[in-house]
């Protein structure tokens, strides 16, 4: 168990990490959490929140920017001028909340390959059909259900 080491600095961080990790552990059997295996896709959307609750856009923004968590700027641009060297492999996310609805954005963050099998965008909430995953990430989605909802809330807020 790595949690005690990670937590050496801060109890608060510890709680967040612990809850993310356990939610992340596939969310299997967690009341109210939709596990990666339980995702229901309707057209090009996932209509239902993975936590049953709305996400928090402020937390979502932090996840998108953090290189150790979402690391989305490695491929995308967002309207945060202080972040230099934003990537351009994926589309610019400025205005994405105007182009796409919440349920559409959710599917794209969960697993873009359901729409485009050849996509470069990593699946952020999927645990199967992956090869040679590093031991410490095996069986875990990149983001927890609540982190996905936070990211979705932030992207929905990017109206222009």
């Amino acid at each position: 168990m790595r949690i005690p080491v990670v937590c050496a600095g801060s109890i608060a961080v510890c709680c967040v990490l612990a809850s993310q990790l356990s939610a992340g552990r596939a969310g299997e059997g967690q009341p109210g959490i939709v596990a990666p295996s339980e995702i229901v896709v309707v057209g090009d959307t996932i209509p239902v929140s993975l936590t049953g609750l709305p996400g928090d856009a402020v937390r979502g923004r932090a996840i998108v920017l953090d290189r150790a968590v979402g690391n989305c700027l490695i491929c995308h641009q967002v309207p945060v001028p202080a972040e230099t060297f934003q990537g351009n492999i994926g589309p610019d996310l400025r205005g994405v909340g105007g182009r796409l609805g919440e349920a559409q954005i959710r599917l794209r963050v969960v697993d873009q390959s359901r729409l485009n099998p050849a996509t470069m965008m990593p699946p952020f909430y999927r645990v199967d059909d992956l090869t040679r995953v590093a031991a410490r990430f095996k069986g875990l989605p990149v983001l927890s259900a609540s982190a996905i909802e936070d990211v979705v809330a932030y992207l929905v807020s990017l109206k222009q």
Partner: protein
Amino acid sequence: MRQRMPSAIETAAGIAAVILVCSIFGMPGLLHAVRAEDAPGAASRPAVPRQGITFQSKATQALQADDGANPAMLWVEQGEKLWSVPMGADAKSCAGCHGDATVSMKGVAAGYPKVDPATGALLNIEARINKCLVEHQHAPPLAYESQDLLSLTAYLSVQSRGLPRDVQIDGPAAAYFNSGRTFFTTRQGQLNLSCAQCHDDSVGAKLRGDTISQGQTGGWPGYRLEWQTLGSLHRRLRACSLGVRAEILDFGSPDYVALELYLAWRAKDLPLESPGVRR
């Protein structure tokens, strides 16, 4: 923006395009069986191979171009000294068998990895150096990333600087080549990306502060400014594995050496540029 997002319907309608992309990426899918039957020569490689240094900033290019400023030259100088140092139980030096490296080792590194006829194993230049140490000098092998092995590797690479790659991929090398190609084209890691998706499909794109190159290997071993030291090709490969959150293989692991062979073939006639300098 490199790829437009197709709707589900467009995706279904454009299945031919998807098949094409699958075949380029070598993704397990519709064309998998076809790829497996491909002759080695049929695999894709960049139409116009480009040295890694050409994707670096002007300042980094200048650093590499000037032997007086290129920090990697310190290892080359060290390697030159080691070449003549007696080693092992028999106190034999490399020069004792091979003489002047600028003559005997010219073009040698460009031919690696190579199958060892005695054992059938695929050896990269590091493994070949260690084979000499163990078998001919009765010395212990040098550890990967040790200063001595890096120095000898850099010294040998410089003897091929400016010369084109010349690796064999048929006969006993064919199986290694195929497994290297599979490694290159298979999506891997928690982020589910293949080498080819970055180094074939996204060349020139920005990945944060990096410009994605063709992933050519001719600059390695190389001095990476981020590391503040010279590193082997396998150290560079491990950084890419880490980036996609895939298993980070051991230095010298057979999978990376097979991948090295595929990458060397992929460079076609591209001249070696080691010792490189990178961001």
